[in-house]
């Protein structure tokens, strides 16, 4: 609790410090490459025959995903707090790579915890992190995936809190983490709002984003929450089917519970043991969801749905072939849902889909499903 109080105080003070904000803005512009484009997906729009589809291009941010927005912000905060060592958890490796990158930029020691199964599945990202000077520690406990990496990072943090900051990668965990991460990600929605005004002279009708922990979604949604007419849709991982262990759709199969310091919807059994999850996309493969999403769900402000593994792969393929953009398998869930609902929308409606990351990391996985015969040749 001491560590959380200390973090909250440091964050509140950084927020009102013009110098901190100026540094952050400068890195956003010159290092991350913000603002990222709001791109009109013309061929996909034609193909679907409904609303105009725009992509918010977080895949064009440095390191290839929205994760850098939060990682860089938190690493700057760590430096401001005088902490020379940062730790992070990672599933697919995107948050790990983002934290490794920000650490290299700011001269911080960086340790990344990663489930040993994910280390095996995401060798390329492990290598990237090592190249950036980060130590990757494989976690062999439990299901050997993201959840277990978080457990291990929390254990490290409570042991080394005096000189270590935990860069939590999503809008989950104990307060103030969900708030800090949301604030750093909300730049996505702020930019999108301005950009859609420039392009269309009005606000969008619908926002669609995929949801693992929920940071890219809250980043896009947050600035629009007060605009009651704007429909927002969060897309979870439907896996192979909505039965225990085969998906990660917390709003479809979970009940309220507490995991890793946050009260939210959790996939669990009748006795409160945390359930196992499955998704084709490692970044959505998590048993709980950010607590603010639970609130937005209960308030009926955001609709939550899911796309299955095979629908996501269809979205992945369509996006590549119609737009020349290979999306992350996570973002492909948002694309898949857009493909489902956009055809029934009026032609003058506007939809923004958050292209949260690029799919280079996923080509191996996707090829096994989409082009199995080619895959065999490698």
């Amino acid at each position, binding site marked *: *609790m*001491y560590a959380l109080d200390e973090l909250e105080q440091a964050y509140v003070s950084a927020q009102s410090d013009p110098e901190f904000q100026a540094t952050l803005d400068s890195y956003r512009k010159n290092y991350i490459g913000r603002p990222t484009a709001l791109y009109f997906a013309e061929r996909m729009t034609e193909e679907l025959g409904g609303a105009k589809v725009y992509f918010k291009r977080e895949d064009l941010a440095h390191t290839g995903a929205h994760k850098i927005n939060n990682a860089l912000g938190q690493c700057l905060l760590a430096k401001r707090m005088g902490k020379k060592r940062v730790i992070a958890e990672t599933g697919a490796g995107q948050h790990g790579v983002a934290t490794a990158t920000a650490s290299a930029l700011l001269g911080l020691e960086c340790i990344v915890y990663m489930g040993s199964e994910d280390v095996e599945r995401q060798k390329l990202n492990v290598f990237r992190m090592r190249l950036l000077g980060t130590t990757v520690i494989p976690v062999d406990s439990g299901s050997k995936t993201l*959840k277990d990496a978080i457990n291990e990072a*929390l254990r490290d943090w409570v042991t080394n809190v005096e000189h270590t900051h935990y860069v939590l990668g999503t809008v989950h965990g104990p307060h103030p983490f969900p708030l800090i991460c949301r604030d750093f990600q909300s730049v996505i929605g702020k930019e999108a709002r301005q950009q859609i005004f420039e392009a269309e002279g009005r606000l969008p009708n619908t926002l669609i984003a995929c949801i693992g922990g929920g940071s890219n979604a809250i980043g896009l949604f947050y600035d629009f929450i007060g605009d009651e007419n704007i429909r927002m849709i969060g897309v979870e991982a439907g896996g192979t089917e909505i039965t225990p262990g085969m998906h990660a759709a917390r709003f479809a199969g979970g009940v309220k519970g*507490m995991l890793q310091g946050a009260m939210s919807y959790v996939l669990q059994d009748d006795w*409160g*043991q945390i359930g196992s999850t499955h998704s084709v996309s490692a970044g959505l493969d998590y048993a709980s969801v950010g607590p603010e999403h639970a609130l937005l769900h209960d308030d009926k402000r955001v609709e939550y749905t899911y796309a299955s593994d095979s629908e996501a792969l269809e979205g992945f393929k369509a996006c590549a072939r119609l737009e020349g953009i290979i999306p992350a398998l996570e973002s492909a869930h948002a694309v898949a849902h857009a493909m489902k609902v956009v055809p029934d929308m009026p032609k003058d409606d506007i939809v923004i889909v958050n292209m949260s990351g690029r799919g280079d990391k996923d080509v191996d996985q996707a090829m096994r499903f989409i082009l199995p015969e080619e895959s065999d040749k490698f």
Partner: protein
Amino acid sequence: MNRIEARFELLKTAGKTAFIPYITAGDPTIARTREIVLALEKAGADVIELGIPFSDPVGDGPVIQEAMMRALETGITPGDVLELVKSVREASEVPILLFTYYNPILAVGEAEFARRAAEAGADGVLCVDLPPEEADTHKAALDAHNLCTVFLTAPTSTDARLALVAKQCTGFVYYVSRMGVTGEQAALANDLNTAVSRIKKHSQVPVAVGFGISKPEHAREVASMADGVVVGSAIVRMIGELGDTPEMAGKVGDFVQTLVEATKA
């Protein structure tokens, strides 16, 4: 007054320190855990801290985490642990403190969990990942059944927090003697005395010290400063090494006896 409070009263009169061993229920099996509990009582343990296995024990180090995984692999549920307590009560009045994570309580419901725990014959609950700030309804549910609520304090706890923890604790306050998760350490933290007296300023109930105590000499040293000594990982490690064997409980009892003797010396 429940069994935990009564035991600390008795020890206070006798000028002795409590010895509190931790074990994980269901490791290696429920039947063996029952044998261990009875062996610990025979060895002189004052309160048994009985861990309810949880899938994501984030406050525990590798030794207890692995014990919980072994127990969960046998299919054990929190309901089975309460059945075990009931079955221990047929043979023993040893005070039992349930150690648990919050989600299993939440899944059953705070009031229902308290009711079942009391009915089984448990004497208190240590919920490791529930901050005392958020524990009012949890405490009220346990109070209603005369069950103790134990919370943790750490070296980084501020005076304001110590006051809050002390207010929410009945039975005893658990002081985590070093930063981090459960596990054995070669040497003890050196500012223990100061820390314990700082807690005593806020707390009317006894203070027990745990995390990192694994040897009789540690127990002896801590006993001179605190009202209770908690040992977990060293015992759990031994249970894991000996496994599901008939002589295991006896050997664990022999080891704990050396810790009890050091604590009471």
